């Protein structure tokens, strides 16, 4: 079902980092906004289940509506946004790695992204179930940006 959902998404851009707190979410949101301002059709998927920030950065606070083809991502400043935070705003989400992975895959399977030039995915920090699942989707047109800090820490 995920492959079908992403069929009309030309490119996936995974925004990664080796650790948290380096600015991944800000980079993801800024890049998505820049693409939208340049006239591209862009979506932003918040895959950082333990610390979702995309909804906050775009001031998106509504439960996604259901359309004929699936959940309709919120449209903010020309960017289509989907985040677990829209379903459980402000609630802690204590999940195992497997559970977090399941939530991300479920969101991808439920969301009707429509046609996109790029789907930016704000990834959780470091490596784990979510990163391994999304890089195993087996699709072409996947790029990655790694956000780093200029020090050994």
């Amino acid at each position, binding site marked *: *079902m995920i492959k079908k959902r992403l069929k009309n998404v030309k490119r996936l851009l995974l925004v990664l980092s080796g650790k948290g707190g380096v600015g991944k979410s800000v980079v993801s949101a800024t890049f998505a906004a820049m693409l939208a301002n340049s006239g591209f059709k862009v979506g932003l998927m918040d895959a950082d289940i333990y610390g979702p920030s995309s909804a906050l950065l775009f001031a998106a606070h509504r439960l996604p509506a259901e359309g*004929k083809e699936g*959940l309709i991502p919120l449209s903010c400043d020309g960017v289509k946004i989907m985040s677990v935070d829209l379903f459980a705003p402000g*609630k802690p*989400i204590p*999940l195992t790695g497997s*559970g977090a992975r399941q939530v991300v895959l479920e969101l991808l399977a439920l969301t009707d992204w429509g046609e996109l030039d790029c789907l930016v995915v704000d990834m959780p920090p470091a490596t784990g179930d979510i990163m391994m699942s999304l890089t195993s989707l087996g699709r072409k047109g996947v790029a990655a940006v790694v956000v780093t800090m200029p020090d050994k820490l």
Partner: protein
Amino acid sequence: MAGELSRVHELSLVQGIIDAVEQTADKEGGSVKSFKIGVGELAQFDVRLVRQLLEDLKKGTSLEGAKVLVEPEASKIRCLSCGRHWDFQELAGPLSGDEREMIHFLPELLNSCTRCPSCSKSYFEIEGGRSVRVIEVVLDD
């Protein structure tokens, strides 16, 4: 059950099931004699509606002549802290309508809404009855 709008969710999910069963048949190089679907308790779907949607959506596809079996699947949740097994009905009572809706879409959000009835920890995982799944596909000989 989650509200009226969940029918759209059921429709989308059932279409996904039809696609998955057809793909299985294509991969195995056969035609489908019957297929069995489990409707997990946490999905909070109307089993009769899922059955009806499957019958409607398989028309005009390669599954049109296949027999469809739909059965409910009870939820099974295991606390990873104390080992206790429990089910959705044990804690369904105190959940608000919004919380049930959250769980309907994303069953793992059960962890945000409730705790283990034995040890009160939020460290548990869903072992069964999570969503709608294909249990079995039987091909023609």
